[in-house]
């Protein structure tokens, strides 16, 4: 039988399919439909040291084959997450990746420090799309020097592997990834949403500014995975517009060792279990023994 399991930072995941941060609530919300133990790993909603209220509405807006969101990182804070929501993952022995953020270097560092190593915590995923409020609000992830510095600082305070989740709004993704790599990052998630905006022509107004996700992001994210895979040798998690198993495969072939499904879950909440099943079928049809053998094969 074909093996769906993949190894990430020395730990075995039952399969390479995860949710994308912020698109599967705190995990428990999907339980009435399917169990979180089906996931390769659960990626937490973006957590911060202190709770955040998030933005006023509208927070979501439909685009042609896409979604614009400006949730504003509402979350209960890292402590409440571990007290209230983590026990479910413990009980179900489901590995998690903790997505976290801050608006200052100190917040990132304090948050990372706060998270105690645990057998189920595969990695910390740093959301680098956040504005650095001390530097005029430019995202941490846009500047190679800021990236280097913050990754270095975070690495210094935790033994848990660190994944940098990069923003597409950069000049040269290789440069940014290179800076994180030099600072000792353990892996990448590519990509976060694309900054964008909506004009309401009836009201002559701008109802929402936020991150664009969904199928529209896919060819851009694929390019990111392909490029970084060919230059840096750390695990890559692919994210951006994955709607079905063939999208997932294209990310794996481009160089991802696992994929994250976000917006697709809103359209069909069973997308993740379906992708897992269809990847399995694909492997068996192809008589490919291990899904992990497919990572990067498009590089020929």
């Amino acid at each position: 039988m074909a093996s769906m399991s993949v190894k990430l930072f020395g730990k075995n995941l039952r399969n390479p399919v995860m949710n994308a941060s912020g698109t599967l609530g705190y995990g428990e919300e999907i339980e009435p439909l399917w169990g979180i133990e089906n996931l390769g790993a659960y990626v937490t909603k973006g957590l911060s040291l202190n709770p955040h209220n998030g933005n006023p509405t509208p927070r979501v807006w439909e685009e042609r084959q896409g979604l614009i969101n400006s949730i504003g990182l509402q979350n209960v804070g890292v402590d409440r997450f571990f007290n209230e929501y983590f026990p479910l993952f413990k009980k179900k022995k489901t590995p998690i990746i903790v997505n976290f953020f801050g608006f200052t270097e100190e917040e990132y560092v304090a948050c990372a420090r706060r998270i105690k190593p645990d057998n189920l915590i595969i990695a910390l995923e740093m959301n680098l799309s956040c504005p650095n409020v001390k530097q005029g609000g430019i995202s941490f992830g846009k500047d190679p020097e800021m990236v280097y510095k913050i990754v270095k600082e975070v690495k210094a305070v935790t033994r848990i592997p660190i994944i940098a989740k990069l923003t597409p709004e950069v000049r040269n993704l290789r440069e940014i990834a290179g800076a994180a790599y030099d600072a000792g990052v353990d892996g990448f998630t590519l990509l976060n949403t694309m900054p964008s905006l909506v004009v309401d022509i009836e009201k002559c107004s701008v109802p929402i500014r936020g991150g664009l996700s969904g199928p529209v992001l896919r060819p851009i994210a694929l390019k990111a995975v392909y490029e970084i895979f060919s230059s840096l040798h750390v695990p890559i998690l692919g994210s951006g517009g994955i709607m079905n198993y063939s999208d997932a495969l294209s990310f794996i072939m481009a160089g991802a060792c696992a994929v994250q499904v976000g917006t697709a879950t809103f359209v069909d909440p069973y997308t993740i279990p379906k992708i897992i099943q269809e990847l399995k079928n694909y492997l068996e049809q192809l008589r490919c023994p291990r899904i992990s053998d497919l990572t990067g094969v498009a590089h020929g």
Partner: protein
Amino acid sequence: MDDIEGRIIQNKEIVSGHYLLKVKLAKPMNTPIPGQFAMMKLPDSEVFLRRPFSIYDYRQDTAYFMYKVVGKGTHSLSRTGKNSTVSLLCPLGKGFNIQKRDAYVVVAGGIGIAGVHLLIKRLGKQAIIFFGCNRAEELALMRYHINLNPYVSTLDGSYGFHGNVVQLLSKHLKTICKSNIEVFTCGPENMFVSLRRLLEKMRIPCQASFEERMACGLGLCFGCVKKTLDEKEPYKRVCKEGPVFDLWQVCL
């Protein structure tokens, strides 16, 4: 709660721009609580996200929805023919909580009737109904409750009270409000604002069904929030902690 395939067996315009949709489900859904809703995936592939609609009624594997055409999705739905298939994620959210009261007042504005129809059915004769709409024609939205003697207002005065439904309620509130009553409401938010102003003095309990743009309908995305007085976590999800909220807890 489940994602259930449904086949449209009727999609009829009842008042101009307002439709009643009958969907035969491939399997039964959990019995819906009044005020709960469904996320509907439309057959039109250009409509990307699902759309939320109150469960208007539910009988023998058949779900009913009443909807008003307001944009791309509802327009496309209105032109969807019989036998087309839709996917229904349902029943979702927290519905109305019916506790023992001396009287129940239901206040509905326009298409808001869709959100309280099942509630009225449940309450039966105990419900004192106030319905506000634009013009007499829209009374058709209420036709199943005519026997319950609803109080009706029209903005153009073409039927019943000339004015809005909260003004109408205010005229009758004294006589109703002998004792332990509760108000249930569904309609546009500006109606909730005036309603609150009216009920405030008497501190009458009120449950209101809110609307907000949704992506998932399941509590996954935190896109559909309303601000409440909860200081620790002010933003509550309409799809999960709502759509029915204690009117006194919500910031309007």
